[in-house]
């Protein structure tokens, strides 16, 4: 198991797997198979994948602990960046196809419509995380501060779920599913904090050499 997780090829495979949804959407666009309302289909699919990748990213720390596989940390940055990637696609489709590049309309939406306000907030908060995801930024910020900044992902995930809740007309089952998954992932962290206040969340490997927080696992 460990040798699979540490193999550089696993990272390549995971990377390619993360691109499958995007590939299928592109194929659908080419073959005209994105339902009768392709823009809405693209908006929903990329929104879904943003939330899924946020959930998968948030699942890494609990899984490392529960499965006893600390090496899983190798994938966390990539998965988080894929959440950002699908979030960017989602936002671009909204701006380009839904708003047809009417930027004043986009801004009016962001200010006026609460589901867009909260979704936009969640997206914008991912930008500093994507920017500071490099080894250089971890060094520059220092482990503790870097970790603080990257807790913004909790806000983004919650904002994404609220965005979904406020968007549906009447059937809240799907937003509820996401809310359930995200709640469990956040609750695990709160629980860990109370039961083991000294335990720190994982800081990626390149950080360990330079900075203070001890990594218990």
């Amino acid at each position: 198991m460990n040798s699979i997780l540490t193999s550089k090829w696993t990272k390549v495979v995971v990377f390619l797997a993360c691109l499958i949804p995007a590939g299928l959407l592109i194929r659908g666009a080419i073959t005209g198979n994105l339902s009768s309302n392709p823009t809405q289909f693209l908006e929903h699919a990329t929104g879904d994948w943003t939330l899924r990748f946020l959930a998968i990213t948030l699942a890494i720390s609990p899984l490392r602990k529960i499965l006893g596989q600390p090496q899983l940390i190798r994938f966390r940055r990539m998965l988080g960046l894929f959440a950002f990637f699908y979030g960017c696609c989602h936002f671009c489709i909204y701006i380009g196809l839904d708003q047809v590049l009417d930027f004043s309309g986009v801004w009016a939406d962001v200010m006026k419509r609460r589901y867009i306000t909260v979704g936009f907030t969640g997206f914008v908060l991912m930008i500093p995380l994507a920017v500071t995801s490099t080894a250089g930024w971890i060094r520059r910020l220092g482990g503790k501060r870097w970790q603080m900044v990257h807790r913004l992902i909790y806000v983004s995930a919650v904002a994404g779920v609220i965005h979904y809740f406020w968007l549906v007309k009447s059937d809240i089952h799907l937003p509820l599913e996401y809310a359930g998954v995200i709640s469990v992932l956040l609750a695990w962290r709160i629980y860990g904090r109370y039961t083991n206040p000294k335990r720190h969340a994982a800081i990626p490997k390149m950080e360990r050499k330079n900075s203070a927080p001890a990594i218990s696992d």
Partner: protein
Amino acid sequence: MLIKRASDLKYSDITPREDYLNRRKFLQGLGLAGGLAIAGKGVADLVSPPARAYAGTKLSAKSPSPFDTTEKVTPPQVVTTYNNYYEFGTDKDQPAKNAQNFVTSPWTVSVEGEVGKPRKFTMDEILKLAPLEERIYRHRCVEAWSIVVPWIGYSLSNIINLVEPTPKAKFVAFESYFDRKQMPLWSRAGIELPYVEGLRLDEAMHPLTMLSIGMYGETLPNQDGAPVRMTIPWKYGFKSIKSLVKIKFVKDQPPTTWNITNAHEYGFYSNVNPNVDHPRWTQAREVRLPGYFKNTKTLMFNGYGDQVASLYNGMDLKKNY
């Protein structure tokens, strides 16, 4: 223009036999799918092709109609695979799959309430009650997408005149068919069922207000509201109730499903109005399916202002949205 009536055609002849076995299998499949992980489900959605259009039975109808729009008719494949019919699932592609074995025969429409001659109409009677016309209408959904559909039917006023509303009748209440057994996804709809709608009597009497039994030259596919539905082209699509079973003439404004669900977002009138935004999105533009860009300007009363604007003289349409 020659009007061909389907005089020898019985509605029971044109509804295919139901295949319960397939439906059961399908439901089992649903149960399995429910157990799948979120991510897996997502990939499956992307891989599976959309359901095929349902082939109905040919209907003869008088055409063209003076009400026709000259805009390009939307391909039937688009109209039959993208439906808001929450009884059969809230995803747009679900009704086309889940309504395939919906039993639409025998079928009666009960016309009752404040009328001199209440009665039940069988589908055979409805087919022959007035000459069938084909009318190409724009159809604008409250969700800011639109299609152009050649409906087959006739003005609802034909039926209203037959039953002779009393002077007390001010509104008309409509009700959809509802059956938990045939519509197992009803509990996920998030709306009260049966689906109910309503019009003011003068709106119901307007010649544009249509009782539809077909589209694209054929009987209605189940997912589009078979066997008989309303078509009210100047109002948002949800006003045009599907699978109609009851028409009741009443004194007071009747409750309507989306207004019950969310009065802040969906009013009783729900006339297409580019100047009154939905609280969550603009109603000034729409996407003409199956296009990509939401850049078609929405017209007041969906472009039927010349015919219907006078119904609302002196009314504040911002308040009465």
